[in-house]
């Protein structure tokens, strides 16, 4: 399996652990990721509020480069995913848009390839049976709250991925990795990322709700597929705790990190040490669970 890989801007910076774990998982799964050469920003969060054509042209250039290679595009970031899907749909739906975009990016782009969420690639495309069989160090007993956030599944007409209200892809992935996915109501609620810099008060409130409900549901870690969600839930957790006078202590992890962990990669090599909230309880819990299981037979 070979995909064009669009890391987007966070995977080299704030989301470095997402990048590290993604590459580790891809290696184990035998998925070849061809990083789009000289990829550019997808324009998320800013472009579509400024200029529609610009918001389509930015992702289109990346997609067109992949199309030339005849490859579908795997996108780790939910925001990038949403913008790319929007572009793909707009181009497929209108000859006029196709022509304009092709002219702007000075490349033919016909949207003949598909944009896929990395989560989709590593689960549905790779096959959960394979994932389960490669999980040599299962995450025995770990209770996780799968947090999809908003952009991966919404709006459904754009995202075309899983159920917008109660998605299951990550839940099933956790199951395949040996962990438990708790049932909780905030799977697809927004973390507030759209106001990340302008109205942090709103972000703090929204992210707090997410963390609170995950905690209430009994989760020991929140699993996400979005670098923006990660930013708000992980980096701002201390601030949230302080503002609300509570202790949360909920590690936030990318699904790829848990996959890599279950595949036997060393936690440090896949970025477990790059988080604001301490992730060692997760590693410890998993090891405990495994040992308990080994003793039991």
């Amino acid at each position, binding site marked *: 399996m070979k995909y064009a890989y669009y890391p987007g801007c966070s995977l080299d910076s704030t989301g470095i652990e997402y990048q590290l774990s993604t590459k580790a998982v891809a290696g184990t799964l035998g998925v070849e990721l061809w990083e789009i050469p000289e990829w550019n920003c997808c324009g998320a969060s800013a472009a579509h509020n400024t200029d529609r054509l610009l918001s389509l042209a930015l992702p289109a250039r990346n997609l067109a480069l992949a199309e030339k290679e005849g490859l579908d595009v795997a996108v780790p970031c939910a925001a990038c995913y949403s913008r790319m899907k929007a572009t793909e749909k707009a181009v497929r739906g209108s000859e006029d848009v196709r022509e304009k975009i092709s002219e702007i990016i000075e490349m033919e782009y016909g949207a003949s390839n598909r944009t896929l969420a990395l989560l989709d690639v590593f689960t549905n495309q790779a096959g959960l049976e394979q994932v389960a069989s490669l999980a040599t160090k299962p995450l025995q007993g770990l209770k996780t709250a799968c947090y999809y956030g908003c952009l991966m599944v919404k709006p459904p007409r754009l995202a075309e991925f899983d159920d917008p*209200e*109660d998605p299951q892809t990550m839940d099933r992935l956790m199951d395949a990795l040996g962990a438990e996915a708790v049932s909780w109501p905030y799977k697809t609620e927004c973390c507030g990322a759209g106001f990340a810099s302008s109205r942090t008060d709103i972000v703090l409130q929204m992210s707090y709700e997410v963390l609170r409900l995950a905690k209430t549901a009994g989760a020991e870690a929140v699993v996400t597929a979005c670098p923006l969600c990660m930013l708000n839930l992980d980096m701002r957790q201390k601030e949230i705790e302080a503002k609300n006078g509570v202790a949360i202590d909920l590690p936030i992890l990318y699904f790829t990190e848990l996959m890599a962990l279950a595949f036997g990669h060393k936690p440090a090599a896949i970025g477990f040490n790059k988080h604001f909230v301490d992730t060692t309880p997760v590693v410890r819990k998993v090891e405990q669970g495994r040992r308990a299981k080994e003793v039991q037979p």
Partner: protein
Amino acid sequence: MKRVGVFVCHCGSNIAAVVDCERVAKEAAKFPGVAFSIDNKYMCSDPGQDLIKKAVEEHHLDRIVVASCTPRMHEPVFRRATENAGINPYLFAMTNIREHVSWIHTDREKATEKAIDLVRMAVAKVLHTVPLEKSSIPITKRALVIGGGIAGMQAALDIADNGNPVVLVEREPTIGGKMPMLDKTFPSLDCSACICTPKMASTDQHPNITIYTHSEVERVDGYIGNFQVTIRQKAKYVDHKICTGCGLCETKCPNKKIPNSFEAGMGNRTAIYKAFPQAVPNKPIIDAANCRKLTKDKCGVCAKVCPTGAIKYDDQDELITIDVGAIVMATGYDLFPWKEAYGEYGYGKYPDVITGLQFERLVNASGPTSGHILRPSDGKEPKTIVFIKCVGSRDDVKGKAYCSRTCCMYTAKHAHQAVDKIEDSHVIVFYMDVRTAGKGYEEFYQRTVEDGVHYVRGRVSKIYQLGDKLIVRGEDTLLGEAVQVNADLVVLATAMVPSAGSGEIAHIVGFSTDKDGFYQEAHPKLRPLETFTAGVFLAGACQGPKDIPDTAAQGSGAAAKASAVLSNRSMETDPLISQVNDAVCAGCGVCVGICPYRAIELKEITQRAGGKTIARRVASINSGLCQGCGACVAACRSGALDLKGFTNQQIMAEVDALCL
């Protein structure tokens, strides 16, 4: 040689003031085939009509053309005059030189020329007419009503009262439909069962009504006046002729945990059961899928305890065939399956999110909680209750684009009941608009608001369970802020959709449904009770969401329509309908799909060809159904179809006459 008589009317000065009628008549005399031509002051008057009669006698005319006013008004008059003169009334053509000439032109010369053209065209047309006869079809004086809810019962009773026999077919084991499930009816708040069950009893007892419950219509053949209907009486396993309805079997049946659809899933029943105590017929049937005797050949308790020996485990489905003259469709509605669409409300995983119909059972004294509003999860009385309107209605993404019409009122009723029955209750209604068009409806809604019900204009975006509370998040669009309610019970006003299987039955009977699956009325304004299939009428929610008074009114209306059909022994059909030239017809069947009345079918004929007898299929017009639109004729490539009175030859003759 054909001999046409032309009569040009002055209409006093209405025509003559602008058109030189004398000249028109003189010119007409020179047209091919015209043997006599005259102008007259008032052709529609008695002397005018006598003129036709006299001219026919004196000049041996065999065809008549009248040039006067619009045929939409006086064509029948002059047809009759033609007939009175001894000529077949269809050897007649009329042209309009008043509305289409004298009243819209002032130039006498040009108007007269136009009138001459029009008369020439009419003469050309009439030369190609042939005598036509009306035919008549017999009427079976019996009606079929499909569906025994309030609409069906009302229709059956009214037809029966009119003196005609009615067969009422109901799919469920009892008639009554949804109305007996309801607690109170808006806006009067009278007890639903109290007004519905007497209606069920009268239906049952009416000497002209035969009821088949637990039955379905399987096949309908024929056409208006002459339908042949096959009804499948599903096996009941209880001989209702012997059964006294004592109910002993029900108390002894060991399988007691079957969800009762009459309770909307809020209560249980046994395998041998009556849906509810006042069911009609008031005798039980066995639910074969859940009966231990029928599924595993164990038990058999009901047969043992039955004092009359009415239990028949070997009962079979039975097919009954009847002839009827008219059909009333009253198949009602179901509720929109919200659990499949509304993930934000939990896809049905929270037990305390219920539908309005379930709420009806909760407040109903004969319901599973004896009328106490207790929430399903823990049986506690809810204090904070949220009602959400338009769940599935007015939502073309997840549900239906249309408004379900009744929800505003029943939600108001429910809210009122909740406030009324629960002390210290806090009742919130989320709404998009409040629509209360109906007698006494707005007043009722205002009263509910005054009762203290809190109306919030906005949609609910999410419901989730936290502890024993349902967290309801929404928006108050009037205040422009987010709202969160910690509720004990949420009631959804779900949309009305056509009842399950209604599309199939429409197909069996042979008429169309609209884009939402409701039955398509023949005209949205003027023929709301008719279908395009003659003799098939609509009553109640099968045609679109409706409340009880509208449903009852439609039931009576459909009954009047059906009774009109049944009031005669036979029905005359207009001869101006399509005809088929068998020799030319290739049987391609394009016309069959074009006919809105299903008046065309392919039938087998035998013919001699090349010294052999061959059988082949050709189009065949049902004169009882064809309305003479001619759409099939224009679609027929070979010209095998033609429309009597507007034949290809006639129209082309008119076209030719215009220019020659």
